[in-house]
């Protein structure tokens, strides 16, 4: 492997069907990047796709109990190899254009090559059957072409001709999306994230994956941009504001917020490793949701009447909410039946929408819960670049957080090739309606890549191939 230039991108999240974030416009730009830029360069290009190229977690089948299991040691697991292959087939069918463009990029120069690093959304590349299918989709039985595709199953990729470059997706530094079993990293060819549930092998399911399968995938169909709010810390905050403020988000989001809290609380008990420093979460969000439901009951809102009719049993929901023992069951039921929480429209009170004073880039659910994926990855990169480190690294490139970062020490984060939610300091986020379809104005994109001349890696640059800000 090797080329005159190494081009690094990440986080395309190419999926299929309702939850696919890689829309026509983004695909058009990616094809143009491959065919109209990389394929035309007068030197060999090694294209490194640094994790989350494909999004298996959100590809069909994306929900259902058969997607999850656990090992005899209670390690949470998700997809089997046949399920991952089914997902890949769906992605290929939805994005043949992308696969053809990659093929043309490889065919344009006999020295062009493709390196794919799995990320937390496409850990499925650890399945041999998935790798075989992927290469077959790209090369169509062309063995020569196939040899120029390398799926790199180690946590970091260091190109042979440019060992001072360290390319890593970065999920292992993020407690929500890291892959560790019994404190050991399971992200390599020798120790892949694959375990048996007693009947068959399955992929390890990190917290983020479990959250998507358990909850978010169901919401994404209606709020297509909900999972574009990255990093996770900010995304959770968006939910939490919805719980407390009826003007900010619909009841549906409030219930979702509660579910997140429950999810994190339960995980803190059952899988403390997942949450590292996460301490027990306060009861506040539960109380906020309760108050919101009780107010809806008192106002005799249509939404409450609908929930009341549908809730199992012959008791009035308002009465049941008075009983602390019943509340948990009610919230669980609501979270499983979000359809009943549909509201015709959520009136936004603009002056109430700001997250002023809470958006310090850190997620602080409670005193002990602070999480900032971007900062965690920066810290990790700076550690690798430390001159005292034996790794002799001069350039670190990561992805994962969807936040582009450029540090003079030699760290780049390429952000993502999907739309993102603008969380700039001076922007006041809107209500949940912006997460619905046709809300492109709030979801610009910035398609970055890092271009490394292998003879001068220190002169690497992060370049924006295409961006759109709807302002």
């Amino acid at each position, binding site marked *: 492997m090797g080329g005159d230039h190494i081009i690094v991108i990440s986080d395309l999240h190419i999926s299929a069907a309702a939850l696919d974030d890689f829309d026509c416009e983004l695909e058009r730009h990616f094809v143009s990047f491959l065919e109209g830029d990389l394929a035309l360069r007068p030197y060999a290009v090694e294209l490194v796709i640094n994790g989350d190229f494909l999004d298996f977690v959100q590809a069909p089948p994306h929900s259902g109990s058969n997607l999850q299991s656990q090992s005899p040691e209670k390690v949470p697991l998700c997809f089997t190899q046949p399920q991952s292959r089914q997902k890949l087939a769906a992605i290929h069918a939805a994005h043949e254009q992308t696969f053809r463009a990659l093929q043309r990029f490889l065919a344009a120069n006999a020295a062009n090559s493709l390196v794919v690093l799995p990320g937390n959304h496409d850990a499925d590349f650890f399945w041999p059957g998935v790798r075989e299918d992927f290469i077959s989709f790209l090369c169509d039985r062309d063995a020569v072409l196939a040899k120029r595709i390398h799926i790199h199953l180690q946590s970091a990729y260091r190109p042979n001709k440019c060992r001072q470059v360290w390319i890593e997706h970065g999920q292992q530094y993020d407690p929500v999306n890291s892959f560790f079993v019994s404190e050991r990293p399971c992200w390599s060819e020798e120790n892949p994230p694959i375990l048996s549930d007693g009947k068959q092998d399955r992929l390890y399911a990190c917290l983020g994956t479990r959250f998507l399968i358990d909850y978010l995938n169901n919401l994404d169909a209606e709020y297509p941009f909900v999972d574009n709010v990255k990093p996770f810390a900010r995304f959770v905050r968006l939910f939490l504001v919805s719980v407390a403020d009826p003007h900010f988000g619909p009841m549906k989001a409030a219930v979702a917020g509660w579910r997140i809290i429950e999810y994190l609380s339960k995980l803190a008990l059952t899988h403390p490793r997942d949450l590292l420093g996460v301490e027990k979460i306060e009861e506040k969000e539960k109380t906020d949701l309760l108050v919101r439901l009780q107010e809806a009951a*008192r106002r005799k809102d249509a939404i409450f009447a609908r929930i009341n009719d549908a809730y199992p049993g012959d008791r009035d929901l308002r009465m049941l909410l*008075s009983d602390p023992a019943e509340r948990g069951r009610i919230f669980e039921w609501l979270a499983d039946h979000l359809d009943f929480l549909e509201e015709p429209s959520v009136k936004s009170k603009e002056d109430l929408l700001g997250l002023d004073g809470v958006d310090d880039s850190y997620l602080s659910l409670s005193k002990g819960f602070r999480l900032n994926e971007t900062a965690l990855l920066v810290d990790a990169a700076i550690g690798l670049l430390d001159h005292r480190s034996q790794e002799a690294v001069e350039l670190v490139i990561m992805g994962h957080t969807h936040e582009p970062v450029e540090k003079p020490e030699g760290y780049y984060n390429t952000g993502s090739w999907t739309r993102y939610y603008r969380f700039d300091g001076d922007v006041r986020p809107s209500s949940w309606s912006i997460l619905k379809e046709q809300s492109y104005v709030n979801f610009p994109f910035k398609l970055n890549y890092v271009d490394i001349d292998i003879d001068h890696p220190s002169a690497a640059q992060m370049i924006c191939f295409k961006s759109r800000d709807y302002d």
Partner: protein
Amino acid sequence: MIDVTLDVKGNGGLLKVVWRSPAADVASYQIDFNRLMNRSAEVRDRLHNLITTAMKNRSDHQSLRLGLELKELARAGRKLRDAIFFAEAGYNDEEGFEAEEWLVSLTEVVIHVTIDRQIYIPWGLVYDGDPEILSDEAEDISIAKFSGFWCLKYRLSTLYNRIRGGIVRNPRTTGEARIVKLVNEGAWAKAFNQVSEAEQKLVAAMFRENDISSSKDFEKIWKTQKKCLETDLLYFFGHADGTALAFRKGDLLTMDDFPEILRRKPPADRPACMVFLNGCHTAIGNDKEGGFLQATAYGGFCGFVGTESEVPDVFALRFANAFLSQLLYTGSKAIEVMDKIRRDYWPLSLAYNLSCHPDFQFNPHGVIPPDMLPTPDFSKDAIGSEKV
């Protein structure tokens, strides 16, 4: 017997407390409202545990093993007591201490609490004495051991101070008594089918008129047909909370409906109407919206009997049957009946409080009472598997 009045009036975050004997004001000081509310919440939380454990005991076919829960309730009741006597510094704080000393020095006392705003405190669950000397035996639930609860020790009753003393004069004869029964049919049927035939007969004798089982019917019969003018006792059985009663899912009688529906002219020729709200949490209310304390203090009403927590359905039905039959057929006053039934139905009876005029009564003269029920034994008898 000495009648002591504890008069509590709101004043921002502070409540003014006045202890009165029939002769004079004994002590007056101010206490912190929030502290009182927090400690009340603790008491109700312990009461909830007591009820939940009782239901579990009976569903496991065990006798009631509630000694520890009662001790915990006593502990919380003791803390509530301290909040009542612990005056805010600078607000005649020594008078709180004096009031405490004075109350301890008395014997044979009955306490009437009168309040003037939305203060929902489980006064009857305040505990005198040291809960730490109570044993840790789960089986030991004798009433004598826990006689420090104010509802037992002082036969405590609570009254919204808008209700005047004279409104329960000239008791109605039992033969003329008009009782309107509002029911959640589902809840009623479930509980009713679990009591003995003798008890079902007693119920039939007490409630002679048709049940009302929807808010629409209640409004029609109560207002349009002027049933309100001739009712002596309004009884509800069903699911409830502190501010609403449920006839069925989606059909509620809420606090907002009460002024419109319940208001009536005070009758001149008969006592005010008493209300018995036999559902969960009916005595709790809240300091913002209020609760049934105000709702049952409109002209022509003399307050209500309610609950400080959830109650198991069969127990609730039987408690009310016993209470009402004693009230109708013995001529005893509400405070005396409550004291008797509380002892007979110990310890789950702690869930009930008397927030009505303590002297409300009927005159049973000339009425042949139906067969009265034997005192139940809830170590064996069903209490119900569902909360009402």
